[in-house]
């Protein structure tokens, strides 16, 4: 039946090409939307993931990494009190105003960090090295933000006015973009403190590296006894942040809706093709039924065609999605085509073709063998 089904589908070239294009289009849309969603999740929590650590200590009431509060002096001692804490790293994450040469202001997000051998920060460099931020008042900005920050000519060495301070760009990061779209300005902790007007021992977060991961809950509980502080595992804080941005902002709903739209378009196109091909072959299918083909064999006429459209169209869509991903990077959009994303996408495309074949399956099941003599 495989041969009958595929040859019958391929017989009408125009219809085959049109429906493959339809499936490919729908699949591209689905892969890209799901990938975009995964990209949003990833970029919203990128700072947490790349700073790493086991436990994050923050001001009570902090719901998302981008809206932290400065921690009071003395919080470092509380955060590091537990014997399991091996290392404490300060993190600054704060919005500041950058004054462009023409006098207008641009909100930027200062990312202050302590260099660590285990975690490379910033995590993707286009020019320069993380060590270049070591000298005082040196920062890194992203290559995608150069225009937004009104930097003219070579960004390395350019001077930026942030708050009342002036810093120099010493390195350029490679496609690191914030979910908030405010440009990241990476700096080591001392520089970041000056840019955000923090005192010598002040930070927004203390990130704890533990001697043993098992003692995380102990550490979290002991920090939690302080009225102003709360500690969370890195994973928990990452999930909170992702949910805050992606669910809370409606971006997830919007992406889900366009993916659904793509699937609906796909169902209609595939459904029409399969139904047209089935309609054209009802006499022949009734003949097979009369000759003694079982209902399963008759249904497989439709099923093989649906499978071909799903695999070939879906495959084309996948290739196109990789193309879209590479193109989107230049616009600062991250489309993540990871294993889980492809899994969700492929499942959606298969479901789409299965759903689209239902009309035809119904038609062939309703077929009376006696109709062959009519």
């Amino acid at each position, binding site marked *: 039946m495989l041969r009958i089904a595929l040859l019958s589908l391929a017989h009408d070239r125009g219809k085959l090409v049109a429906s493959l294009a339809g499936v490919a289009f729908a699949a591209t849309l689905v892969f890209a939307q799901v990938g975009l969603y995964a990209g949003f999740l990833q970029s919203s929590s990128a700072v947490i993931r790349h700073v790493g650590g086991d436990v994050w200590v923050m001001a009570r009431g902090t719901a998302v990494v981008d809206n932290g509060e400065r921690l009071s002096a003395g919080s470092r001692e509380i955060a590091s009190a537990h014997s399991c804490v091996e290392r404490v790293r300060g993190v600054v994450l704060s919005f500041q105003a950058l004054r462009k040469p023409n006098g207008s202001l641009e909100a930027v997000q200062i990312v202050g960090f302590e260099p660590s051998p285990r975690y490379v920060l910033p995590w993707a460099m286009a020019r320069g090295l993380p060590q270049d931020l070591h000298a005082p008042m040196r920062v890194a900005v992203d290559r995608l933000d150069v225009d937004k920050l009104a930097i003219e000519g070579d960004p390395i060495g350019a001077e930026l006015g942030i708050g009342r301070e002036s810093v120099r760009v010493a390195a350029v990061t490679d496609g690191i973009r914030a979910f908030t779209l405010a440009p990241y300005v990476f700096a080591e902790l001392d520089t970041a403190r000056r840019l955000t007007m923090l005192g010598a021992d002040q930070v927004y977060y203390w990130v704890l590296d533990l001697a043993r991961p098992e003692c995380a809950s102990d550490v979290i509980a002991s920090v939690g006894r302080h009225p102003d502080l709360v500690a969370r595992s890195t994973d928990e804080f990452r999930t909170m942040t992702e949910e805050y941005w992606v669910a809370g902002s409606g971006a997830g709903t919007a992406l889900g809706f366009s993916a659904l739209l793509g699937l609906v378009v796909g169902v209609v196109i595939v459904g029409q093709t399969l139904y047209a091909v089935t309609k054209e072959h009802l006499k022949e299918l009734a*003949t097979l039924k009369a*000759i*003694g083909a079982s209902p399963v064999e008759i249904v497989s006429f439709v099923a093989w065609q649906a499978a071909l459209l799903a695999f070939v169209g879906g495959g084309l869509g996948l290739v196109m999605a990789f193309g879209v991903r590479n193109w989107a990077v230049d616009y600062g959009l991250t489309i993540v085509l990871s294993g889980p994303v492809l899994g969700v996408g492929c499942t959606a495309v298969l479901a789409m073709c299965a759903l689209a074949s239902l009309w035809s399956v119904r038609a062939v099941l309703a077929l009376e063998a*006696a109709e062959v*003599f009519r």
Partner: protein
Amino acid sequence: MTRVLVRSEALEKTFGEGELATPVLRGISMDVSAGELVLLMGPSGSGKTTLISILAGLLRPTAGQVELCGTRISEQREADVTRVRRRHLGFVFQSYNLFPALTALDNIAEVLKLKGVPAREAKERASRALADVGLGARLHHRPGELSGGQKQRVAIARALAGDPALVMGDEVTAALDTQTALHVLEILRQQVSSERGILLVTHDRRLEQFADRVIEIEDGRISRIVSGGANAGEAA
């Protein structure tokens, strides 16, 4: 002792219910044996197609019995009737019903595969069946590249390739000119053997010369049974 391939007893069929009930068959008892070609004739609307559909197990009678190749199909479940058809029957239709995308060879081989014949053997048997109907040179033509008579011969080859005991056809010559129709019947006639019988529904009086018996039905009843032209030579 000739083997009876299909036999009906007091067959009745009524379409619709209550006021709309239309009795189409009103007690038909008949049979077809191996070694004979039987024609079913009668005016339009007399119930010929309905009768052959019931005999083939494609339609259930309202009353009466059908025994098809040793099985009382009127008492069997759908799947079992399907199995009987698969094993013992071949069909030929007025409109050929060939898959347009498949070559003559594939149209036959794929049906054999559905019947459980291995792919290689299916191809061999298909090309032999096509040679038997004089289409040995047209194996790789698609239906669109064949004439009406050639298409009908492909359909006959398809019906015969499964080596059925009984071949049934409805108006198999209706779309063909006289010469082609006679040629198609000659081919069918040659396939009648001590193991095989053929039952054809037709309007076409020219076909009587190929038949052993002609069963005429009128208004759902058998009006008469006459012997056909095929017996004339033997009787002498």
